[in-house]
């Protein structure tokens, strides 16, 4: 690329911005001049139009196309082969089982630990610092976390163990273990990384929610002679139910989509693959677009009930208020 090329490109960008500004300006001008009758609808429609357009191009169309591709083989013929493959091949079934395992463990454990931590440090001295410590991992990317934990789980065939976990095992007189290559412990160890990242998120949100529980209610319960556990279960938890659901569902969705951790640590080998990782592998490495699409569809089916539940609970909360 030469200087004139670059100047040309910069000019193009500037021109593009100018045109965009002009279009938006014109649009607003016309909305303003819309007929009095039904002006609200005109304005609503015109303001929503760009967003709807982008949603249609970027979300609705690909979703529909993916659904169609899932029912086609590589030659473009309609068939159920992709789904037959998904539910009959041991490797593919294992991928589905692993994903279920992830969703069953990661959200529950991170929410529980996050909640317990938030309750224990609540109103303690140095609460801020305790929070920062647990919140820090969430600032690390999944790939970065994968690399860090790769060192924790490292295994050496000969010589000293540089992996933290194996170093501990050896220090206690045990034999070093190939953590990431040993099925099924490897999947559990990968889930630990997810929990490590997400617990901070759960803790921060739940801590804020706990502070929002009215002290009067807790004091009233105390006067009624309840113990701490009863107060927690009957006052605090119902009081933060909305936040609990949001935290739980958000982590569930993040867990369903997990890709980076698996790809950096084992690349889906040794029976650790999950749906999102297999989806990428099939569609882009194995060139089996249909299989990848079918997996994407399954992922969508998994996510759907969580989202519906989330929306329902939030709506009920609003009705109560």
């Amino acid at each position, binding site marked *: *690329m*030469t*200087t004139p*090329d*670059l100047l040309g490109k*910069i000019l193009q960008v500037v021109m593009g911005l100018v045109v965009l500004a002009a279009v938006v300006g014109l649009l607003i001008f016309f909305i303003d001049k819309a007929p009095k009758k039904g002006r609200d609808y005109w304005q609503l429609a015109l303001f929503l139009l760009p967003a709807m357009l982008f949603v249609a191009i970027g979300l609705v169309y690909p979703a529909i196309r993916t659904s169609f591709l899932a029912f086609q*083989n*590589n*030659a473009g*013929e309609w068939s159920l*082969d992709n789904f037959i493959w998904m539910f009959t*091949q*041991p*490797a593919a079934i294992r991928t589905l089982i692993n994903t279920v395992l992830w969703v069953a463990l990661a959200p529950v454990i991170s929410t529980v630990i996050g909640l317990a931590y938030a309750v224990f440090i609540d109103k303690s001295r140095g609460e801020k610092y305790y929070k920062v410590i647990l919140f820090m991992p969430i600032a690390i990317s999944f790939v970065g976390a994968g690399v860090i934990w790769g060192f924790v789980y490292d*295994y*050496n*065939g*000969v010589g000293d163990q540089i992996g933290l976990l194996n170093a501990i095992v050896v220090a206690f007189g045990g034999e070093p273990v*190939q953590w990431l*290559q040993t099925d099924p412990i490897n999947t559990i160890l990968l889930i630990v990384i997810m929990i490590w990242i997400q617990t901070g998120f759960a803790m921060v949100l739940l801590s804020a929610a706990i502070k929002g529980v009215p002290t009067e209610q807790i004091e009233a319960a105390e006067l009624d002679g309840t113990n701490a556990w009863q107060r927690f279960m009957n006052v605090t938890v119902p009081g933060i139910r909305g936040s609990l659901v949001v935290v739980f569902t958000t982590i569930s969705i993040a867990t369903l989509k997990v890709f980076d951790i698996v*790809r950096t640590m084992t*690349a*889906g*080998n*040794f029976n650790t693959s999950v749906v999102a990782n297999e989806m990428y*592998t*099939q569609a*882009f*490495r*194995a*060139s*089996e677009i249909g*299989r990848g699409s079918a997996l994407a569809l399954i992922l969508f089916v998994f996510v759907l009930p969580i989202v519906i539940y989330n929306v329902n609970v939030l709506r009920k909360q609003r009705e109560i208020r």
Partner: protein
Amino acid sequence: MRIRRHRRWMAPVVAAAAVGLALTGCTGDIAGEDAADTDCADYEEYGTFDDAEVTVAGTILDLEADRLSESWADFETCTGISVDYQGSSEFEAQIAVLAEGGNAPDVGIVPQPGLLNRLAAGGWLIPASQPVVDNIDEWWDPIWKEYATVDGEVYAAPLMASIKGYIWYSPAEFEENGYEIPATLDELTALSEQIASDSGRQPWCVGLESGDATGWPGTDWIEDYVLRLHGPEVYDQWVTHGIPFNDPQIAEAFDGVGAYLKNEEMVNAGIGNVSTLVTEAFQTGGLPILDGECSLHHQASFYETFWNPDGGDANTVASDGTVFAFLLPPEEAGGGLQVTGGGEFPVAFRDAEEVEAFRHYLSSDLWANNRVSLGGVISANKGLDPEVASSELLVQSIEILQNPETTFRFDGSDLMPGAVGADSFWKGIVAWVGGEDTAQVLDTIEASWPAS
């Protein structure tokens, strides 16, 4: 107030100017080269063009990409065609998407016949012009033409080549112990056992780890054995699914390899036991040879550049150097060698004279000699003078490829559909060295072969 307002628009302008200036620094203004300095006699047959441009993309990066560009610098000067190469490590995953969206480069350097097939099936490729086909017929072994042919139509001439199935060893260790280069597979077994009993450790070191491609070095082993044990016909049937993947002949090849890879007496020298095969990176798998902790390592010719992991040239690759390599021997002595290898195919996405002129040049012996003399690579072009290659190993490789007795076959996993060659075959190797038995692994791979 006035000053403040002034500042408000000053900041973005200054920022924009700074960014603009900084970006200008990224550009390299290249002065037009003087055509008079170049001898254009060799390039007359490609014609001359005004303002013609050819965009090229491929997986080749860094130093190799610079050498590639250099190899057609004279061509650009003499023909007036400017060639713009863009390398990307994601090329293979992206090219089909780009082609479908109509954004493909003019020429794509495709490293796998399987991918070439897919692109041709998508209807995106321009068949090779007659001069290119003539060059293929003149300069290449006929098998290469088959790899670039889809439904009777030839789409590209091969570009460079590499040889797989080399076994690396230390010449000093061999000389000291009086070991001979084995001439048959049985002799290789005998040699391995000899080394094991002399040294009291395993003779072979292996690394199969390669990120999400873990397992591929193992597929090279299998391919080598299939070709050597059962010959090219069975090999061709195997990669095209003419025989199932779980055919007994393939199982035999697996078991032949398993005698090394799944044998605690044979691997993994200097690294650990059999279970470390899948955790040792292929890049470092052979390095224990340098410390005398390992004697034999199976890896392609490109491993030449891995022997000095910290840079420098302390470890030399030569028959009297630190390390050298011999080809995995045939089953029976005498006769020709069998060799598996890889290569690239420059396919065209745009039908234009300048693109074909460029591809015509790439398919010529002139280009092969130009590129190989820049170092680091070889080509299977028979017009290539072996002496221009940059190292003893490459000279030896060219001679193997040019020997009419040699049976060459392309890397099998590159010929199979992606679902097998870039997925289940690799995973199968990982499971297999992890302890799964051969029959089970082969059944799993066979089941993953796509129906269409």
